[in-house]
Each structure stands twice: as structure tokens, then as C-alpha cells.
């Protein structure tokens, strides 16, 4: 299952770059890509400085995740999209409007962490007001829970859809098959955008050693689900593929499958060192080269933006350092909805 669509070079000497997206949109996407990348890099540093127990996240998926988050219908309830995500989704959530400092709080497991109150790993977000279900470590279970909001969206009508994402190795789990089966039942097709971000690894195991299918997307095709394999390291290819897919799901109320080929720029997680992987394609570098070549942003402007964001993140880290840890007396709180203290 070696990639055919991943660009092999960064395209350093670019000429004749033309974008289809409007200039301010490109600038916004670039800004969010940096917001995401630099947040992840800050959290990796926090891990290395002993200010968090564990890091995993999505550096290398920005060119796909930012266009995804920006095109979501964000709000609470079935008029809006429901999100069943995995742990490489910070770019999606930051594009929806989430705050960097909240991720830092979860990294530092302070009580101020709005996602889990210091209970969960970084990038295990949960935002009920935007229908973002609690991200869980259990690989692929989100492909089963997504079925339920898909059913509810189908019944509700309107434009809201269910979005689910996960990695390539996880597709070997049963829930992936469940999702394909349940979303494509005759007469009961579900409005779901099903996404696999394929970085070709499950921790240390290359996909090529475990998977015989040519593309994961071929499995969706077997269920008559519209499916596409795209280069998720390219902003515009991602943008327009997501646009087409979302329009289809929102109006046809049927599933659509995207296999997005992405990079894993810092390895799997802090468990594997969280070191930069020079052999992986860096979507931010590629995009910046194109922006520069097209005259959208200069190198200087982009460098200044980086510096500003780096300084801001450092401030956030300092601020969070002063925030309190959860109180041990709260361990039983919210075992049940609205319940506090020991309940038995």
C-alpha cells in the first residue's frame, strides 16, 4: 500500500503557482496551519520539559484538517455537524474556533482544562456546544458512535452531517466495518463524512505489512459509498475534495468516504520520542513555498507571524503553569450527570 499521491519533493523552485481560493482565505488557512503546528510543537516541548506526561497530536495533517474544520457547520444540536474524532484533530478544532490555551491546559492537566478537567491526555478534546464528542484513546470506537448521530441526522433532515475520522491502522478494527455497513443500508443511507487519514503507520507497524487492499477507500466502494483518495498534504486539493464531499453529504443525505494521505511529522507520539521526521513531507513548508511563489505572503511576513505565535504560546504556557491542579476530592464527580462527590 505504498503511496502514489504523496508529493515526493517540497517543490522548492516553484513558478507559476495559481490558487483557486481567494487570497484572504489562503491567509486564514495559513494562519490556522501555523496556529496548529506551533501549538503541537509547543506541547512537544512541554513534554520534553516535563510539563505534561504524554504527547500525541496531528502535526503533518494541517493541510487537510484546517480545510475540514473551516467547512464544518459549527454549533450545538442536530442542525449542526456532529464530530466523532481521534487524537490528531487539533487543527480541525482550532479552525472551528477552539483556543490554543485550552489544549495547553489539557497538556498540563490543570483543573482549568475545559475538555476533561485534567483527566485525560492532550488532544482528547470534548466540546459539547459544538457537538464534538469526547475524544477517546480507544482506536476506532468513534466509527461506531458516529452511526448513532448519523441516524439522528438522517431523521432530523436539514444540512447537519456527522463527521468521523481515524487513522489507517485502525481500519482493521470491527467498528470500521460497522460504520461502512450501517451508513450504507438500503433505504437508510446516513449523512456521514467518513474520513481515514492515512499516514501509513500504526505506531511502528507499516501498513504495507498488514493490509492487502490497494486503497482503504476501496472498501467503502464495496458498499456503494462514494469514495476518494486524496493528497491530504495539499491545501487546495483537500479543500475542494472536502467541499465536494460535504455538499454531497449535506444535500444527498448519503455517506461519502475520503482517504486522505497525510504525514506524521513527529512520529506516533511522545512514546516514540516525538522527534521531527525529516523524511516526511511537511505540508506547511509546501504551502508556504506556494504562498510565497504566488505572492500571497512574503517569507518575512510568515517569519514574523511565526515569531509572534511562538511568543504568544510561551506566554500561555507560563500562564497555565500558575493554574491549579484538580482537587483529589473530585475523583468521583460526574460519574453520573450532574453528580458531585462520592455517590455510593
Amino acid at each position: 500500500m505504498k503511496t502514489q499521491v504523496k508529493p515526493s519533493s517540497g517543490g522548492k523552485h516553484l513558478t507559476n503557482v495559481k490558487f483557486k481560493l481567494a487570497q484572504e482565505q489562503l491567509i486564514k488557512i495559513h494562519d490556522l496551519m501555523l496556529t496548529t503546528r506551533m501549538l503541537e510543537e509547543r506541547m512537544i516541548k512541554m513534554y520534553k520539559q516535563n510539563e505534561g506526561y504524554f504527547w500525541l497530536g496531528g502535526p503533518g495533517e494541517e493541510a487537510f484538517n484546517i480545510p475540514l474544520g473551516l467547512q464544518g457547520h459549527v454549533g450545538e444540536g442536530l442542525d449542526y455537524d456532529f464530530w466523532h474524532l481521534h487524537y490528531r484533530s487539533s487543527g480541525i478544532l482550532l479552525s472551528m474556533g477552539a483556543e490554543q490555551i485550552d489544549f495547553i491546559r489539557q497538556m498540563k492537566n490543570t483543573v482549568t482544562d475545559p475538555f476533561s478537567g485534567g483527566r485525560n491526555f492532550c488532544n482528547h478534546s470534548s466540546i459539547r456546544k459544538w457537538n464534538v464528542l469526547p475524544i477517546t484513546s480507544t482506536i476506532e470506537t468513534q466509527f461506531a458512535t458516529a452511526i448513532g448521530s448519523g441516524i439522528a441526522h438522517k431523521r432530523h433532515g436539514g444540512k447537519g452531517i456527522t463527521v468521523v475520522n481515524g487513522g489507517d491502522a485502525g481500519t482493521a478494527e470491527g467498528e470500521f466495518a460497522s460504520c461502512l455497513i450501517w451508513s450504507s443500508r438500503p433505504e437508510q443511507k446516513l449523512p456521514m463524512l467518513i474520513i481515514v487519514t492515512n499516514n501509513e503507520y500504526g505506531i511502528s507497524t507499516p501498513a504495507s505489512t498488514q493490509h492487502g487492499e490497494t486503497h482503504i477507500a476501496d472498501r467503502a466502494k464495496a458498499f456503494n459509498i462514494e469514495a476518494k483518495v486524496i493528497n491530504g498534504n495539499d491545501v487546495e486539493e483537500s479543500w475542494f475534495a472536502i467541499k465536494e464531499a460535504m455538499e454531497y453529504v449535506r444535500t444527498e443525505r448519503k455517506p461519502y468516504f475520503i482517504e486522505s494521505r497525510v504525514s506524521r511529522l513527529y512520529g506516533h507520539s511522545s512514546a516514540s520520542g516525538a522527534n521531527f521526521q525529516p523524511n516526511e513531507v511537511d505540508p506547511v513548508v509546501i504551502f508556504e513555498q506556494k504562498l510565497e511563489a504566488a505572492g500571497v505572503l512574503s517569507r518575512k511576513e510568515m517569519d514574523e507571524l511565526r515569531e509572534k505565535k511562538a511568543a504568544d504560546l510561551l506566554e500561555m504556557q507560563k500562564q497555565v503553569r500558575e493554574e491549579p491542579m484538580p482537587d483529589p476530592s473530585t475523583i468521583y464527580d460526574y460519574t453520573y450527570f450532574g453528580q458531585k462527590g462520592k455517590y455510593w
Partner: protein
Amino acid sequence: MASMAQAIRMALHYGETKLGVTDIFGEDVGPPLGGVFTATQGLKTTWNSPLDERGIIGAAVGLASTGSRCVAEIQFCDYIYNTIDLLKLAGNMCWASNGQWNFPMTVMTPVGSGIRGSIYHSHSFDATMTHIPGWKIVMPSSPIDAYGLMIACLKDPNPTMFLKPKALLRVRGDELIPGEPENEKELRDRIDAPLGDRSKWKARWPEGLTDYTVEIGKGKIQREGEHVTIVTYGRTLPLAVQAADQLKSENISVEVIDMRTLWPYDWEMISSSIRKTRRVIFLNEDTEVTNFGEHLVRRTVEELFYDLEARPRLLAGAFTPGIGLADPLEMASAPQLNHIIEMAREVANERA
């Protein structure tokens, strides 16, 4: 009088007409069958799912996340084991999100022995289920409690597990459910699907069904007694009652507590009964090692040790890989009336 299956059906009807239940689903739950134990016949929100337990529990979690109140069935608890990951998730996401999310969903599944179900239709699930935090877990032993507990589950904002004692599903109660027609035949004619072609059949639900609720967390003293307490639930409850009635002739007075809710349970009722009788047997039919009753024995020893006049006991299923089909095998694997009588006699007569 209604059977437990009919009682569950009536409660679900009340749920989908009065309590906002939007989906009742699972394998063979919708028409034409209405559930392998008929508990979902004639309901308007039922539908058949793919043969996929993980998909079923996942779908329930997802529906609940949107506020759609649903009831998912796992056809036999013997087949629920591949969903434990998702049951854990349903139970931990309120906590993991520090109270943001809640999942108003009910899972029901038939449990236990008693229908000669052999290895894969006789499992119990209470020991495993009580090990998963974040759920409320109930198990009725009579139709009226089945009705009231189901209503309580359907009103709860948390995941609820409704364990159906398979052996009692067809047993009729001795108490009318509020709104239930007095005439058994009339009830059957109204809500039991006919044999043969059912495509045109519609249930005629009794009109007077009510909000009758059995509060979660409240047990029931089924027999008052002085000498020994038996704490149990589900299939073994009526056996404990029979044992109590038979032991009267030996001047052994047995108090029988129906826990009804396994979690969170009625410790107040259990502990005050033990303080009174000073002798206790915890009785259930799940396998005896790391059994839920062992937790209750532990708590009894830790909190009530000096109130006891006899060693607290657990009477539970044999720790075998399954329940064998042949009658002598099933009888020897899960607690039966004679085992209960023997143990109650032994505990009552143990020297203090």
C-alpha cells in the same frame, strides 16, 4: 396478569409515547418478530439492526449524544462481551468530559440460565456489568418491577442497563401493573402479535398505562424474617421466596431482599436487615469468582463484622466455562431451590 415480557413492552410503549423514546432497536427487535422474547412487539419506534453488537452499542451512544433517547437490545447477554469497550465508553464519557456530556440510553439484554440454553444462552452479566462505572444497572424479578424499573431507566439522563432474567420473562405476576387490563386474555389480544402474517397487525395498547416508576437504587423486602437474610435479584429471587416459605415449617424465619438495582444499590436496606438478622447469604447465579456478591460480602465483613453471628456466605454459579446443556449439568452449575434451602438452613443453624 402480564408476563415480564408484556410488562417491558408496555413500559416501552409508555416510553415512546410519553417519555420521548425515539428508537428501540437491535437484532430482530423490529417487525415482524418483535424480539426473540417478544418484548418489543407492536411498538412504533422499533427497528431491526445489522447483526453487529458493537454497531448497536455504538449507535446507541451516538443517538444519545444527540439527545435521542434510545433503547438498544443485545439479543442475549452471551453476545454482549464484544461490546465491553463501548459499554465502558458510554459509562466514562460524562466523567471524562468533566460533566459536559451525558448519554441517555438504555441497553437491555436477557441474562441467566433456566431455559436450558447451554453454553451460549445461559450466561449471566451482572459480575461483568457491575465492574463498569458510570452505568445504572437494574434487574427485575417481577413484571410490575420490570415495568417500573424500565420507566425509571427511560427517565434517567445516564446510561442504564436493564438485565432481563430470561427464565422469568414469560412468568406472570401477581400484582396488576397500573393500567393493565384485569383480564389476561384481553391483554393478550391487545398486545401479543398473532402467529402467521403480522403485516397488518397493530397493537391496541391499554389506555390507562401510567408513569409507575420503581426508583433506581431502591430494593424491596419480599419476605420479612428474623433469622437469616437472603439478598438476591432476578431468577433466584422467586426461589429465595420459596425457600423462605418452606423453611417456616422448620421455624427458620428468612428475610428476602430483592435488590432490583445492582448499581447503585440499596445498602441501607441490606445493612439494616443484616444488623437485624445477623446472618446473611448473597445469592446470584453468575460465576462465583470475582462475583458481584463477593463485593457485598466484603462490605459486610468490613462494615458489619461485629454485628454478625455467622460467616457471611455467597451462593453463586459454579466457576465453569459455561453451563452444560444436560439437565443434571445445569442444575449443578447454577443455584437451585435445594441449594438455597440447604444453605439457609446451614447459616441459620450455625453456632454464634
